[in-house]
């Protein structure tokens, strides 16, 4: 178990290290002087020189890379030149919107998807099961940003129940803030719910075919208690794995959905900094998103090892 843990953490660190090199090198590929790109062609020479100095373009590439990484380790991401504030501060504020949104969406999708999948499996090969499968197929075929627009059309424009976009900030109170996040969360959640329903259904069906289920039934356990006591517990392993992995796709999904609803989270920051060529923000933001995705994968793997005792002894 300890060997597995250490190896997994080593992979995590190595992945981050390689990712940072890829991101750094990719942005170094930009032709021309980054300070010039960021400020535009007709920038005043003294401002240009100041930014060049701040970015350290005169220093060698390797040195700049390690300065960046050194800064990241202590939480210093440099300064955004469009927002004139530390990038880390900027990102933390935005993360306070994106993370709750992703978590809310995860919660909704699990709450819908898993029970629906279990229901389908319990009614295998009946019209109810086929109904769920059709929902699953439609769910994964519908683009979440389209679903978002339809939700706005129905619940904001026609019914007027929820705001069509924007975010009042947490300072406006818990309920107004959550209210602004409900439609975005649902648009993210519906696709994931369809995936969860499919996964949960097939996980349960897989377990139902196991010998121990037949044994449980043979020793006289009712269908229902077999399902609850034996099947569900075993089916949870793949379900939790997929839920964890989908959390990272929810996080990435917020980038799209925040655009639809005009929500000032990380996703909007990505596009604002991209159009303004605020490279310091782009670089650190991509690094952060990559780190979050890799971190979620690490947690899922570790969780998996805890749940599935078979893995503890194999080590890999």
């Amino acid at each position, binding site marked *: 178990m300890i060997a597995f843990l250490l190896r997994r953490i080593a*992979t995590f660190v190595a*992945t*981050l290290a*390689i*990712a940072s090199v*890829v*991101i750094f090198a*990719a*942005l170094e*590929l*930009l032709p021309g002087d980054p300070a010039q790109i960021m400020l535009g062609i007709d920038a005043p020479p003294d401002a240009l020189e100041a930014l060049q100095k701040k970015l350290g373009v005169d220093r060698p590439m390797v040195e700049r890379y390690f300065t960046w990484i050194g800064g990241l380790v202590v939480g210093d991401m440099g300064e955004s030149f469009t927002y004139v504030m530390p990038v880390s501060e900027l990102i933390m504020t935005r993360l306070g919107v994106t993370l709750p949104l992703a978590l809310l969406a995860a919660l909704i999708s699990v709450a819908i998807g898993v029970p629906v999948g279990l229901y389908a499996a319990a009614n295998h090969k009946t019209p109810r099961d086929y109904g769920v499968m059709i929902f699953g*197929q*439609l769910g*994964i*075929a*519908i*683009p979440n*940003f*389209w*679903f978002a*627009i*339809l939700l*706005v*059309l129905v619940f904001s*424009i026609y019914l007027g129940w929820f705001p069509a976009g924007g975010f009042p900030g947490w300072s406006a109170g818990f309920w107004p803030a959550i209210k602004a996040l409900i439609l975005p969360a649902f648009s993210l959640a519906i696709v994931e719910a369809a995936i969860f329903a499919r996964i949960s259904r*097939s996980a349960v*069906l897989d377990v139902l*075919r196991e010998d121990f289920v037949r044994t449980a039934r043979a020793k006289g356990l009712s269908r229902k208690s077999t399902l609850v006591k034996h099947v569900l517990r075993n089916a949870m392993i793949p379900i939790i794995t997929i839920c964890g992995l989908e959390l*990272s*796709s929810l996080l*990435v999904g917020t*980038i*799209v959905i925040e*655009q*639809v609803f005009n929500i000032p989270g990380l996703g909007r920051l*990505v*596009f604002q900094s*991209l159009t303004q*060529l605020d*490279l310091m923000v*782009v670089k650190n933001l*991509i690094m952060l*998103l*990559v780190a979050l*995705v*890799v971190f979620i*994968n690490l947690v899922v793997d570790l969780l998996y090892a805890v749940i599935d005792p078979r893995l503890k002894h194999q080590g890999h």
Partner: protein
Amino acid sequence: MSTFLKNARMHRSLMIGGVLTLLLLSVAVLSLFWTPWSPTAIDIANKLKGPSAKHWLGTDHLGRDVLSMLMSGSQISIIVGFLAVSVGLLVGVALGALASTYRGWVEELIMRMSDFSIAFPIIITAVLLTAILGPGTVNSILAIGIFNIPIFARITRGAANAAWAREYVMAAQTCGKGRLRITIEHVLPNISGALIVQATILFAVAILAEAALSFLGLGTQPPEPSWGKMLNNAQTFVGLAPHLAIFPGLAIALSVLGLNLIGDGLRDVLDPKLARAR
């Protein structure tokens, strides 16, 4: 082959998927020669009109014909989907086959590389590419293609490793054939079914991703019509002209649904063992 066709005909999702996909392809081909109106012709006097006999699916905020734009937009979806899957298929299968042919450190290296790629989801790669190249269709193809490579590599390696344990491969080995030659002559043809299924499903993923990237303004640029871009424009006018938001989304959803159904159906037909288990 005849049993394949017989199974295929009996398979409902394969049939529905086939019809939807055939429709998509025919629309794209037709739009090369004919659309009801020019998809780029601006007619401000007739902007934001709902569906009518003149404009079957209405007009957008510049008075362009929505049906014509949808028809031409299918071209971009198919081109991006095809090229992105091809990139993934060519590079991914080559890597996966190499890993399974030579095992040892080659396999270890390739598989660690494919683990690493988890760190770069399509949108993040596209953002990075846009920062370097500026937005455009090439971005979409590259971002989705790069995303597909490790998926194909993993599937190929898994299926190929299973094939290497089979009798026909052992027979080929006893005949003294080299490992690479066995991979090309025996292993790859035998795992082609799994690869076709995966390619179909990733084609669907590519259409969704292309739409998302054009929606975000990272992919295909105007005036080239694309479904994602149409939805982006529709968003501003959704209260005034809901038809603008409804039709492009339907086009995306039906295309993706069609390909996914074909993928699922093919898996059942090409792999009867799995089909029975499901």
